[in-house]
């Protein structure tokens, strides 16, 4: 009788993982049988600007005391830079320009914490997504002329935009490669777990090393949130495209969740490009536009943003930027902090929470409707 051995194997043919069963002693020959394929996205060679993040030669033979010593040294080095004050020995703080209707400011790299209901002052319920801004710093600013010559520039941007690279979540540099750590030398911040870039106009140039926090946005501002959607993996046509499938009974044979017919066209035979078929679903960049900021918590750096449709799982990274929707952009009469908010901008003590004027605050009395005047 066959004695099956089950294991995980990296298939040499299709470069994918699958559970396989090696059946021995069947007709005195061996054969591999595929039970299940777990299809992943294809990994394309990385872009020209890509820098490998994680190191492979991490020294794991250090004693515990030595590791702790290294951690202490690292914390010492960065502690001094926590309260960064632009010293006169450096090139000094950059000039702060005014906001105009063509300005594009930096965005912020937030983490989606969850979804919570809120109520308006009229008693109407709506859902809000909470986005927390942990440990954001500007890593690098590239002016438009330099950006045009670099990898990662697209010709339709012209010479309008420079680039601000923003990073979130400071980490121990030991686990990262030398090239990756060198990216942070200019700004002097600890290396970040996640980096992203924002296209900004020249008048919104931010100095590397500037911390970004929730005060970059004000209550009532409208933002766009882009993130990678939930990864559903390889999905069939019913879940992926919402096709109806076929009945479960009444004589239907072996066809319940299939696509059905693939093509049909007199003037063009064959299957059309873009035909909806099973495939990998999710894990794509999507942007939710026009989300209003209802509430800001300055202590924990949390934004409450309309809707429950900010893409991605809980604890996923979200790029938050000023809207590009023309009627909801910040008006030049009421300009947002340029290029970002600095502590010296605060004219009055910062409150722990800011609420939109239409938002019901739980410290208020219950919502009551006024009697009609006769």
């Amino acid at each position, binding site marked *: 009788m066959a004695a099956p051995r089950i294991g995980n194997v990296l298939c040499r043919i299709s470069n994918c993982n699958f559970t396989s069963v090696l059946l021995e002693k069947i007709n005195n020959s061996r054969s591999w049988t595929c039970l299940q394929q777990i299809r992943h996205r294809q*990994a394309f060679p*990385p872009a020209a600007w890509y820098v490998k993040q994680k190191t492979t030669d991490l020294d794991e033979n250090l004693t515990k005391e030595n590791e702790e010593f290294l951690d202490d040294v690292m914390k010492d080095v960065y502690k001094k830079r926590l309260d960064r004050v632009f010293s006169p020995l450096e090139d000094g703080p950059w000039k702060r320009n005014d906001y105009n209707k063509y300005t594009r400011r930096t965005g912020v790299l937030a983490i989606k914490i969850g979804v919570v209901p809120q109520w308006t002052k009229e008693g109407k319920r709506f859902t809000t997504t909470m986005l927390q801004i942990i440990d954001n710093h500007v890593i690098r600013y590239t002016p438009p002329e330099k950006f045009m010559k670099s990898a990662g520039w697209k010709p339709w941007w012209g010479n309008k935009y420079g680039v601000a690279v923003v990073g979130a979540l400071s980490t121990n540099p030991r686990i990262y490669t030398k090239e990756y750590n060198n990216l942070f030398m200019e700004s002097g911040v600890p290396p970040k777990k996640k980096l992203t870039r924002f296209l900004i106009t020249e008048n919104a140039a931010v100095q590397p090393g500037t911390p970004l926090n929730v005060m970059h946005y004000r209550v009532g501002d409208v933002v766009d949130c882009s993130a990678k959607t939930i990864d559903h993996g390889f999905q069939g046509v019913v879940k992926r495209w919402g096709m109806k499938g076929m009945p479960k009974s009444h004589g239907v044979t072996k066809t319940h969740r299939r696509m059905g017919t693939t093509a049909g066209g007199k003037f063009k035979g064959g299957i059309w490009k873009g035909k909806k078929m099973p495939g990998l679903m999710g894990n794509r960049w999507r942007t939710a536009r026009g989300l209003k900021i209802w509430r800001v918590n300055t202590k924990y750096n949390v934004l409450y943003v309309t809707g429950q449709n900010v893409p991605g799982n809980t604890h996923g990274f979200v790029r938050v930027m000023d809207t590009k929707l023309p009627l909801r952009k910040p008006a030049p009469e009421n300009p947002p902090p340029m290029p970002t908010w600095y502590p010296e901008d605060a004219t009055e003590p910062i409150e722990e929470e800011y609420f939109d004027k239409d938002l019901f605050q739980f410290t208020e009395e219950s919502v009551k409707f006024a009697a009609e005047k006769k």
Partner: protein
Amino acid sequence: MASYSRRILPCFWKTTKLLTFEDAARRVPCRYHQELLPTRNYLLPETVEEHRKSELSKHPELPPSITSENVPADFRFVYPEFLPDPQYDRRDSIRERLEREDMYRRRAVIDIPEFYVGSIMAVTVSDQYSPNKENRFVGICIDRGGVGLRAFFILRNVVDGQGIEIMYEMYNPTLLSIQVLKLEKRVDDKLYYLRDAPQEHSTFPFDMDPIPVPKGSTVPVNKMKVQLNPRPWLERWERQDLQGVEDLKLEQRFYDKAAKVAKPWEKYDLMKWYRENTNEDERDSIMQEVHQRKRLTDIEKSKRKTKLVERKR
């Protein structure tokens, strides 16, 4: 068609044949694979917590955890909506903290009393379409659930021969008052079977007087058994383990089918129970916080009352 030279490229894995550019482009070296194709596109909750405590950046001072309160044993049944959603992937300590803060603030304004499924309650809600802009409803609580600000309860009553159920959100600002007319528990967690019971079991007069319960006494349990109407029913009550229902008097085939479909092993399933409930330590620490805030809120309210009384004099 223009010809192109076929470049021979270094191969990252052992093969006997030489690769072209197209072959190499399709496969990516192992050292990049893990980074370019991460297993998940979100962070684990533990990673986020580590970064919130890391010494590489400034963090807000969290209020100290409370251990000094004398919390009664059944406190968590009085305030079940404060316990976090057991689904681990959706949990976040900061979101839960901020949500609880909102709930404390609301409870300082309005009195949300202790109630259970089976208690008879009167709820007044702001209603812009009613003549005096208010709407009062009395009914028996047949269900209670939700976590955090989504906490809800459902009241059932029969008005002019029509059974009516209303779901109220506990933290909705249009809720003006919640009054428990009769505090008691029933033998079941949910009383949806009242829909298939005679209407007398769901009827409660709107002008019912509140029955006071002495403070500190245990909550009375109403062990009454309801006789259901004859079939057809809205649900297959014989398949649910209902304690508050009299003998259903069905044919044996129904009980046989129910036994076939039943999952008697579920009560022994430790992992299922573990996933549906919160960790005991976490539960205790949250209840400590709730107890402290309740105590402080009660003190505030009594101060306000004494001020009012003094003014009246």
